[in-house]
């Protein structure tokens, strides 16, 4: 997995978390800004999962391939689920819900990087 891609996804996740939390703190209802930030992060996540899947198919040794593949699928699903859950009840808390998703994407990306390098 390319470090630039990992950093991009982790950075997007953290930026999304910061955006969501800021909206919540300002008592702003979830809006298009949050929607756009979520879309960008999800796109980066999908590229990462696809790239890692292709690299894995090309033959890369891992401690637990099942866990790694589970992470690749899980990380792609987190944000859509978070967004649907946040959007169904649009209050100032919607931003915080999406922020949890963004933070999860960043943490899962770090775990993916560790697994890829054989550190976990």
């Amino acid at each position, binding site marked *: 997995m390319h470090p630039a891609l990992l950093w991009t996804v982790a950075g997007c996740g953290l930026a999304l978390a910061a955006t969501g939390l800021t909206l919540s703190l300002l008592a702003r209802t979830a809006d298009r800004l949050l929607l756009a930030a979520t879309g960008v992060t999800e796109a980066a996540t999908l590229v990462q999962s696809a790239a890692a899947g292709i690299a894995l198919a090309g033959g890369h040794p891992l401690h637990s391939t*099942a*866990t790694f593949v589970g992470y690749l699928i899980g990380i792609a699903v987190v944000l859509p689920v978070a967004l649907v859950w946040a959007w169904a*009840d649009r*209050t100032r*808390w919607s931003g*915080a819900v999406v922020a949890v*998703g963004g933070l999860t994407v960043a943490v899962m990306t770090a775990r993916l990087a560790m697994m890829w390098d054989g550190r976990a």
Partner: protein
Amino acid sequence: MTAHPPPGTDGAPAGPASPAPTATGPGRLLVALYGLFALAATSRAGVQLGTRLHEAPLAYLLSAFSGVVYVVATVALARRGSGARRVAWAAVSVELAGVLVVGTLSVLLPGDFPRATVWSGYGVGYGCVPLLLPFAGLWWLRRTGRY
């Protein structure tokens, strides 16, 4: 996930006799966190039970138990009604007992006791969120149930 109150009634009581729904306003965030831990704990336990059950059966069964508790708490908090509220109270109470007991044992008996559960070391591997979550859950159930 079915009928939601219109915007602006964030956490407002539905009536003098019925408790407020638990999955709206800040409860939305709480359910999201519970859902995240339900996913993390059950998938972790799934891998552990599927690949190395013989290594530490107690630890891995505890892992699976914590996963079940989080799933039940998530569903119960996301639903409306007095039945769901009772289940949520029970699940969050078991969760609090679990994180305190497993956390304490894992600190006192690091050699004998499993390190590989969500609750080990009071959930320090997950930013101690597993320790804070049941307190937030009990507080929220109490607050929404007051009406």
